[in-house]
């Protein structure tokens, strides 16, 4: 039988686990900015502005960037917690961009989210059992004794004492609350979890416990993670590949070690150089490239390359044309006209 073209093949063939789990194409998420007495829309925040991204089954894709770069919006839109303005999202071979109703409900059984703030993301009036049991009830996954057993099992899996089911969130520390949030995310047996800054609200000595737990759960349940964080050292530790985002766009994407050893985008370079390394000997020898200025406004992003206003290598051309993500070999892509060597 003759081979059809690649494009039609992906459409006709059923999804297999060797295909990307999630494919995002030219994704745009804009939020209206209202102003004046009549609250007219005067512009848009270009939170995510033309992102192409592939998440492979079983991997951890790290997503880093500074506050306001759109990384959380991208993560939430990827699992349809936010409706996209444009572009497409394909999950397990199925277009979920405009999915609704019963189909969207069934998508919610396959994806989950872990939030940053374990204080704000748990209802203070629900017991731990109610919190972890809610997804089970909503999707009708278990009842009675089976439900009870499932909750106990979930608590055990995340390292909490199953006897805690009747306690309330305020009785737990930050790290334990994050474990409750993780148990809730696991309740629907998802294959894909978006972790949005899951450790940045925790004490330093607790962070490693949660990172190790997430890694253990990943291999145990064969999970795929989109791990969003601003701390590049944590992201590099947990991720297979890392995507660097700036003002709504992906600037560079590469396997973690390579990104650290040989960044191509000037923004990645300065981001890496800005991260303090807990070793005075290394710190003393390090060369610092400190970029000046602040992140530009996402309402009126700069023309051409968005980083050009702070970029030490920017030339005229950078203001005129938007650089596309180009391959540098070895699974490494960067969007820059004048990349680092």
């Amino acid at each position, binding site marked *: 039988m003759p081979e059809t073209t690649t494009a039609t093949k992906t459409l006709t063939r059923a999804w297999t686990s060797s295909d990307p789990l999630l494919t995002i194409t030219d994704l745009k998420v804009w939020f209206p900015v209202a102003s004046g007495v009549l609250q007219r829309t005067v512009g848009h925040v270009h939170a995510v502005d033309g992102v192409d991204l592939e998440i492979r089954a079983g991997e951890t894709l790290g997503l880093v960037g*500074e*506050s306001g770069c759109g990384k959380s919006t991208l993560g939430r839109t990827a699992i349809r917690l936010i409706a996209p303005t444009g572009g497409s999202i394909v999950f397990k071979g199925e277009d979920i961009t405009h999915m609704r109703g019963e189909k969207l409900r069934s998508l919610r059984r396959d994806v989950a989210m872990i939030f940053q703030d374990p204080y704000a993301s748990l209802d203070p009036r629900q017991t731990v059992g109610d919190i972890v049991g809610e997804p089970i009830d909503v999707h009708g996954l278990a009842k009675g004794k089976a439900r009870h057993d499932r909750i106990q099992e979930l608590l055990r899996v995340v390292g909490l004492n199953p006897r805690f089911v009747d306690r309330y969130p305020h009785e737990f*520390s930050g*790290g*334990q609350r994050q474990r409750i949030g993780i148990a809730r995310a696991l309740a629907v047996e998802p294959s894909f979890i978006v972790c949005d800054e899951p450790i940045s609200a925790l*004490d*330093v*000595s*607790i*962070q*490693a*416990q949660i*990172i*190790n737990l997430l*890694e253990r759960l990943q291999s145990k349940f064969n999970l795929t993670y989109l791990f969003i964080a*601003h*701390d*590049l*050292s*944590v992201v*590099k*530790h*947990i991720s297979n590949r890392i995507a660097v985002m700036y003002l709504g766009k992906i600037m560079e994407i590469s396997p973690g*070690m390579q990104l*650290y050893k040989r960044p191509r985008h000037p923004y990645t370079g*300065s*981001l*890496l*150089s*800005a*991260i*303090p*390394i*807990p*070793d*005075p*000997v*290394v*710190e*003393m020898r*390090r060369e*610092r490239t*400190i*970029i*000046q200025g*602040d*992140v530009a406004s996402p309402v009126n992003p700069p023309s051409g390359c968005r980083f050009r206003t702070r970029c030490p290598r920017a030339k005229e051309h950078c203001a005129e044309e938007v650089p596309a993500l180009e391959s540098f070999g070895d699974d490494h892509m960067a969007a820059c006209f004048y990349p680092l060597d």
Partner: protein
Amino acid sequence: MTEPLLEVKDLHTVFNTKEGVVKAVDGVSFELYPGETLGIVGESGCGKSVTALSIMRLQRPGKIVGGKVLFKGHDLVKNTEDEMREVRGKEIAMIFQDPMTSLNPVYRTGWQVAEPLRLHHGWDGKKSLASAVSMLTRVGIPSAAHRARDYPHQFSGGMRQRVMIAMGLTTTPAVLIADDPTTALDVTIQAQILDLLRHVNREFGTATMLITHNLGVVAGMCQRIIVMYAGKIVEAGPTTDVFAHPKHPYTWSLLRSIPRLDADRHEPLKPIEGLPPSLIDLPSGCAFHPRCAFRVDRCPRDVPQLQTVNDTQQAACWVTQAGTELKGA
């Protein structure tokens, strides 16, 4: 050996709460020398901020119940409120974590930066504002004369922190206390502010006390560090020595538990088990003993004091005081 600029001796600060007395600072002693940058490291609730606030006598509703804070021969603990006002902002300046809540939203930025000059030097509005503008320029605020007329909300987070630093420096204080000045900022902006603090330290010779939970920040900034846990200093020494061979198990395990950007391969992190203790219900003996991998019989019984363990380092640990090296799998 030069004389210390600031000497904290056996400081005790407590908070009376409904659940009981919280010993936030429990017998803390250290010195700050002219021109140095001293790092104070610890997790939230370890007492690092309350130590700084107690030096400034801003610890309320906490109470200083013991100890001395010697500054230029004076004990600040015994100062009256009026005398303290002469010290604050003039001799010792403090910058805080969140520059938004520490600037007054209804006054123009230049006016606020100039306030210490009007207050302490009795300068008039015009003279103090001119000086404030030049200070704003020196901390890297572009078109400072123009920006001085802006209100705090018109500045970005990084720029507000620069404004705070400028305000602290107008009267060229001898000591600058920076309480987690970069946690609210993005990493590239953090790098800018840390660079500015290094520059300030060099140019003005201001002795800096840098309080942070970020071990990376102290590694790049401080000559000496103090590590706090549950209200006490558990380790002190030159930064290079403490990082190379920590003498307290808490420091030792903390350094092994954090992922490093320059790690060559993926190794599982080695977390510290358990939780930081509640200050109301502290473990007996050494407060770290329930989480400690090196615990010996004596640890739950007796409280170790901070003692010299080698030429340069001090630790409050029975194990290292007995000469044992901290080594692990």
